């Protein structure tokens, strides 16, 4: 009898420990995407729909206010694909087709115009009226991002972010230097490399400062390059109106979790980098759509748009 009570108490303590630390995101609508690659994201501000490039050939528009989603296919030949999505201040929407072609697309997925690029490009973002490019470069160190207007050959270095050398094959160096930039509601936006628990906060003029993310573990290059679903230190990073940084990180999956993609940890940092809040999620999340000090809107690994109240 006594041993039974001990076991019951122990189970109760374990259950309490779990429920205290984990937050369950409340699903609002969806699913807006499936278990598929998110190849780009354009975020024109809090009052505009969030646009995603999904599966390298579909444009998904998520209207959080009206809780609606629309999906349209890009005009692509068989075997073609697009990567990166950038919206300029004039509302124009851009992507890169097959590494070497810059394409302007309409909201219904149509092609408006194309420009040939002289090199292969790995990523595309935007800052105001300029596109931000990352070349598919296999030699480091080098300028990570350059900026330019569509169709203009001349590019300016954007930010002091540099690619990093590794004592690895050049293909691995290129992979470890892939840059991702998240959305912002303030002056600065966060850009990061896949292996680092750190972000570069970059303003529109390209001024850059580095923020180490305390409490988020680094992932070794070897693990990143040999995993099909690696633990990413930063999966998404969102800068809110006050300049605070919200990060989805790999975290620790709950027991019995399936194969849904995403990170299990949501962390909040002050503009100085000081850790403010850290919650484990009961469902993995892939993207942060909106955030302030009271609530965060997420796209979950299940594809649903969900809310976390803090």
């Amino acid at each position: 009898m006594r041993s039974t009570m001990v076991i019951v108490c122990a189970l109760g303590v374990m259950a309490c420990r779990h429920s205290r630390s984990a937050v369950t995101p409340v699903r609002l609508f969806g699913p807006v995407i499936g278990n598929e690659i998110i190849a780009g994201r354009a975020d024109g501000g809090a009052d505009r729909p969030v646009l995603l490039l999904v599966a390298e050939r579909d444009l998904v528009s998520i209207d959080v206010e009206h809780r609606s989603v629309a999906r349209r296919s890009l005009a692509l030949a068989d075997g073609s694909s697009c990567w990166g999505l950038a919206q300029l201040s004039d509302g124009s929407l851009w992507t890169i087709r097959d590494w070497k072609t810059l394409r302007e697309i309409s909201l219904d997925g149509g092609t408006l115009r194309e420009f040939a690029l002289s090199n292969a490009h790995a990523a595309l973002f935007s800052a105001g009226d300029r596109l931000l490019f990352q070349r598919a470069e296999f030699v480091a160190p080098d300028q990570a991002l350059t900026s330019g207007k569509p169709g203009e050959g001349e590019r300016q270095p954007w930010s002091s972010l540099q690619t990093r050398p590794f004592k690895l094959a050049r293909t691995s160096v290129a992979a470890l230097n892939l840059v991702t930039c998240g959305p912002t509601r303030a002056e600065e936006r966060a850009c990061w490399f896949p292996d680092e628990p750190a972000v570069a906060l970059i303003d529109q003029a390209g001024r850059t400062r580095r923020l180490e993310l305390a409490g988020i573990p680094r992932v070794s290059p070897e693990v990143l390059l040999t995993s099909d679903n690696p633990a990413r230190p930063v999966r998404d990073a969102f800068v809110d109106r006050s300049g605070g940084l919200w990060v989805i990180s790999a975290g620790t999956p709950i027991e019995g979790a399936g194969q849904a993609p995403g990170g299990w940890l949501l962390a909040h940092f002050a503009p100085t980098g000081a850790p403010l809040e850290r919650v484990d999620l009961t469902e993995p999340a892939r993207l942060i759509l909106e955030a302030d000090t009271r609530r965060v809107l997420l796209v979950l690994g299940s594809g649903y748009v969900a809310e976390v109240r803090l």
Partner: protein
Amino acid sequence: MLKKVVFAAVVLAGLVSAPRPAFAQTCTRDLLDCYARAAREDSFWYRWADGIDCELQYAGCVRRVLVG
């Protein structure tokens, strides 16, 4: 260039053969297969061009895993 390709293949072969958790390592395997196909080209320039294509294919594959 050929030396670099062979060197990269050897380094990656080492990565693949080292004991790791049970991950599929699909991108690395695809790269090795691609290098092997490129190495069978008779012309140096075709080998070189195919090697570059292999690198881009690998970058695209890893990008899906690390970013997508």
